[in-house]
């Protein structure tokens, strides 16, 4: 029984951990497309609205990171009994807090340090 379990786990583990040729090719084609579009957008200046362009290329990056996670790093909720996914979710939460927190705090710090128009007006 235990030998059977072991063989069973080995087989599923071997299949899931390394992916397949089809998986790698799908991942590669998707990431080529997801890389080419933002580069094309910025290099040709296809978007006049820079803020919208920035949001779009960030969205492409997020999608491409997910594609790499799924097709190249073979992330799925079941790998390593769910512990990899748990560690990933924890890390993503930390990364979001670090990035958004730093940018938010430092942006406001910069904005408040600059003698803005309304502050200058209030000066004697």
């Amino acid at each position, binding site marked *: 029984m*235990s030998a059977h379990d072991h063989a069973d786990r080995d087989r599923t583990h*071997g299949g899931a*951990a*390394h*992916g*397949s*040729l089809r998986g*790698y*090719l799908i*991942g*590669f084609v998707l*990431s*080529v497309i997801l*890389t080419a579009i*933002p*580069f094309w957008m*910025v*290099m040709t200046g296809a978007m006049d609205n*820079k803020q919208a*362009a*920035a949001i779009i*290329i*960030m969205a*492409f*990056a997020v999608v*491409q*990171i997910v594609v*790499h*996670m799924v097709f*190249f*790093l073979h992330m799925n909720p079941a790998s*390593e009994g769910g*512990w*990899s996914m748990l*560690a*990933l979710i*924890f*890390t993503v939460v*930390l*990364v979001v807090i*670090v*990035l958004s927190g*730093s*940018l938010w705090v*430092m942006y406001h710090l910069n904005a408040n340090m600059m003698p803005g128009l309304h502050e200058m007006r209030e000066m004697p």
Partner: protein
Amino acid sequence: MASSAITAVAEPVFHLEEEHAHAEGGSTMLGFWLYLMSDCLIFAMLFAAYGVLGGNYAAGPAPKDLFDLGLVAVNTTMLLLSSITYGFAMLTMDKGRVGATQAWLAVTMLFGLAFLSIELSEFAHMIQEGATPQRSAFLSSFFTLVGTHGLHVTFGIVWMVTLMVQVARHGLIEANRRRLMCLSMFWHFLDVVWIGVFTFVYLMGMLR
């Protein structure tokens, strides 16, 4: 005297026999994944530093004066190609073909070296123009972030050469397969970080 009598009465039981055997290296993949996640936090810090300082040019050169997006696109292609060729190395490793695995690893290493040399020539060009890390906060954080990624790629290549020697000497034994799988995760992870670099640093820098 007394102690021996006590041990005879209350023999401690540890239930060691119920602990099933763990295969060697059974937890390596999870442990390596945790390492990668902590590495991810290092990069998060560097990205945050770049995000905060990236606009402080100190009257020096800005991204538009320095970056050559065509070169970055070539660099991205190199890293992406090295990712898929490493995937092919893993697939041939699954089939137990030593020669093909070594060949794909060599191709991956060449793409990695191409990436590194393009990046180094870009750095050299920037430094020649006076855009050194000391020039402004933007350049300090740029060189730290992109340089740390480049260092990771360098060590990935050193690791790859080491494993190619190991595979040549011992073949695709269980330990070598495990090591190759760890390097696979490391290599693909570096590609994921590079997605963040080219989006956040290069593309957004040109939009600014």
